[in-house]
């Protein structure tokens, strides 16, 4: 039980929710699924603002972008066919690996992106998918997710709500995601999202994020640089993996060691690149 809570609000308008957030600053907490709040028994929470009745539970495709409302649960997202347009065959398995089926019915996109555990799946996934994030801080704003996380997002979120995530359904993008776990149901001990854009057989643009290092996802610019402008050959894959095994920005924690993470970073990259290579080659043939 969150003992200190004195009020649970269920606003119906974003403005109202935002007003409550400001009014009770710094003692207000937004409630998405509420998993994190109940799990961590956040003692400081005094005023809870439930988001269930806000118009934040939507999944829609607009102008080549998939927009997912902050209150959509992972289970709901998984059940939506539009996912396949974003990243065929790879987003679904990635989402299906998160937490447990029960918790996927609780965890919301907004709650997950706001909490942003360094080991979390959604930040890495959506960063890899070159997404944008929509927030409401009195005005509706949209940021590149990467820039949002590079800034002091925790401070921003004390006075703002996440409203949605916007995922570009870019045609030329090939995406793959991998996470390493101890058992089938586990948080990732290392995760990696890769997007590649090809032009005339060559990698035009690469985006690679490594998360659960155990720190927050980092973009692997060096590896991206190595890949860009090249064909995705076995040789290039080998070179990139070797480079990452050397340089992966990882550390030890009680779960696994730094050396193991380094090794895994290479393994995940190899798997991701191989998957993309396969998809790219079959799409060329088709």
């Amino acid at each position, binding site marked *: *039980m969150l*003992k200190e809570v004195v009020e649970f609000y269920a606003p119906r308008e974003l403005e109202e929710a935002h007003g409550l957030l400001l009014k009770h600053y710094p003692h207000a907490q937004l409630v998405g699924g509420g998993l994190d709040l109940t799990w961590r028994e956040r003692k400081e929470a005094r005023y809870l603002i439930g988001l269930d009745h806000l118009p934040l539970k939507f999944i829609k495709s607009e102008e080549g972008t998939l927009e997912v409302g902050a209150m959509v649960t992972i289970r709901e997202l998984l059940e939506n066919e539009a996912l396949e347009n974003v990243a065929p065959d790879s987003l679904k398995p990635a989402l299906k690996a998160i937490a*447990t089926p029960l918790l996927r019915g609780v965890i919301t996109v907004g709650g997950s992106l706001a909490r942003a555990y360094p080991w979390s799946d959604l930040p890495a996934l959506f960063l890899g998918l070159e997404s944008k994030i929509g927030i409401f801080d009195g005005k509706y704003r949209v940021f590149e997710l990467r820039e949002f996380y590079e800034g002091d997002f925790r401070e921003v979120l004390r006075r703002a709500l996440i409203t949605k995530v916007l995922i570009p359904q870019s045609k030329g993008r090939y995406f793959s995601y991998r996470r*390493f776990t*101890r*058992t*089938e*149901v*586990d*948080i990732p001990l290392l995760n990696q999202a890769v997007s590649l854009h090809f032009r005339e057989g060559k990698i035009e643009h690469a985006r690679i994020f490594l998360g659960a290092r155990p720190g927050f996802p980092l973009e692997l610019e060096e590896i991206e640089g190595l890949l860009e402008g090249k064909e995705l050959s076995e040789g290039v894959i080998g070179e990139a993996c070797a480079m990452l095994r050397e340089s992966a920005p990882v550390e030890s924690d*009680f*779960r*696994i*060691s730094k*050396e*193991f993470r*380094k*090794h*895994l970073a290479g*393994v995940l990259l*190899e798997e991701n690149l191989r998957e993309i290579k396969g998809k790219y080659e079959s799409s060329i043939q088709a």
Partner: protein
Amino acid sequence: MKKYRVVGQDVEKVDGRALVTGQPVFTDDFSLPGMLYGKILRSPYAHALIKEINASEAEKLKGVEAVFTYKNVPRKAYTTAGQGYPEPSPYDSFIFDKKVRFVGDRVAAVFAESLSIAEEALSLIKVEYEELPAILDPEDALKDGAPVIHDEPEIQGAHDPSRNIVSHVDLEIGDVDQALRDSDFVVEGIWETQYAQHCPMEAHIAIAYLDERGKLVIRSSTQVPFHARRILSFLLGIPISKIRVIKPRIGGGFGAKQEVLIEDLVALATLKTKRPARLELTREEEFVSSRTMHPMKVKVRLGADKEGMLKAIEMDILSNTGAYGAHGPTVFFNAGSKTLPLYNKAENVRFTGNVVYTNLPVAGAYRGYGATEGYFALECAIDELARKMGIDPLILRQKNHIRPGETSPIFKKLGEGREGVPQTVESCGLEECIENGRELFEWEKKRSLPREVAPGIYRGYGMAIMMQGSAIPLVDMASATIKMNEDGSFLLLVGATDLGTGSDTILAQIACEEIGIPVKNITVYSSDTDFTPFDKGAYASSTTYLSGEAVRKAARKVKEQILTVAHILLGASGDLVIEDGLVKEVGTGKTLTLEEIGLRSFYMADQRQIQATASHVSEVSPPPFAAHFVEVEVDTRTGKITPILYVAAVDCGVAVNPQLTRGQIIGSIVNGLGFALSEGLVFNTRGMPLNPNFLDYKVLSSLDIPEIEVILVETHEPSGPFGAKSVAEICINGPLPAVANAVYDALGIQLKKAPFTAESVLRLLGKI
């Protein structure tokens, strides 16, 4: 073999309907007006003296009804281990002490109107600690100048507390050194197990209250209600006659509840306040402060001649019992006594070792009870020996394992922390277990396949054989009472403790088989120290075998009483039988209903309650046997091991309820696979557990399990009820060695430390 009517049938679990409809059957599914809620303050240090403890602020908090610290509770050394009296575990625990001995040790307890108030009160207790140097590695416990964890003068029953030794054994049969020198092949290694926790879904919970007579009633999730009553009486200085322990349905135990861990505190709170009091461990407390498996380092040396006959077995163990010695000596003895007789062809056997204190969580009873740790070492060593000799490890096992009519001197030499009892193995289906398992698994065919099945992906095939016991001979007693009602139905009252295993059902089947009635005609009550007769409780694989025989004896007596009445009523002189609830005269076809007999006995003639009580102690502990086979896949890029297929062939005597038997087997295999693959507490350098939750202590889920095939190899154990032995523990012993052997088969690396994490595989492969 005789055909039975009820025994051997998949009878529906007698408590099954209540469980699938969510009836209020567990300890906590019940609330009393005015109930207080308890919380325990835990030590943040691995080893420290409490210099000062001040609870006055907590006591003043509104809603706090009782605060206990070492200052206001009786000081009496005791053991929390729920074992027969006198317990073989050392008396080294106190309700509260001035000293704390591990992170999570008891410091104080608060009982208040609500859980939140109790929690708040804990934060108001001021404690000043003086930190002491701690022992966080069992190897350090034995070093000269090591801190002494139990320096209290009251300690009793520990081998040498000044050197942190709880138990020590130096046993030799024959001349092991000479035999090893004479052997053509010798192998040696050390195998190490981890801090594993039982993780029953229902944590420890107890509720105490005073009944209308002023008797202290404790409703507890316990495997040992009678031992709990005895220990509480001793500890609190109140007579047995003033305590009643009720065991409702239990949400799993696996040994963790063969302890008295919280009952003392609810009892104190109720005695002090006269109000009902409840205490439940949180999941974190369950991990850290309840009990765990004993982490052991087991060294094994084997010697064999050219023909592959074992000549010598040496087993030397360092067992870490943690901060207190509950079950320390007995678990250690079992690591030898339940493993070494399996290879009785070796005439020279040495069993040595120490059980030591450390400033880490307290180990206790865990399904397998030491045999798990012993088999990991022994069965891996056997494989190693077979490799050295260049023969199939299956054949090496066949040459050397025990057979019906044989014995082992170990049975007599190693018992429950002391000498054991000699016995000859009467029933033993191990040969068939190996044979049937081998066939279903396709052992030879699989082992001839290429191991690399895809680039970097390897398959391997491993096996292990094992035995356990059935009850503790000449120590443990079980009893049962059966009463008949006037409608011809029956009540079976047992102290035996069904903790989810299905033993109420098994015992009902045994009673009904003996009397000749269907299971629907009997109601089982377990267990209530005021209303059911004594039984030692649920441990040592004994309920089916030992309590079952007590039930059978009681049922036989009841049947005799029924037949006596029936003879009179039928005017019969010939043989009578009871079948499907009817008494029949053989030959004449005359019948009588049980209702007629019941009514007459209550109201008409020769008036009496038809009922009987019987007790049973066994002179032997017949081992069940098993052969396990596993196929694993190892990804050499990540190091991950995935079990693919598991075949278990098991001889548990006659399976009283094959379906429940299969459940015991599969359940223990999956728990054992958890030991092999992922389970284990991790500590920081100050002895603090880092993963006391399901997020980071990885038990297996439905997605992690292999295909599991169970083969029941039925034998008939003459000393057991209708030929039954036991099955609850044995199969937890297989996965550690079988998986390690399979991984060796795949990759040629020896996993000697559990769990076999992906990282450890890659390290052995030299990839990191």
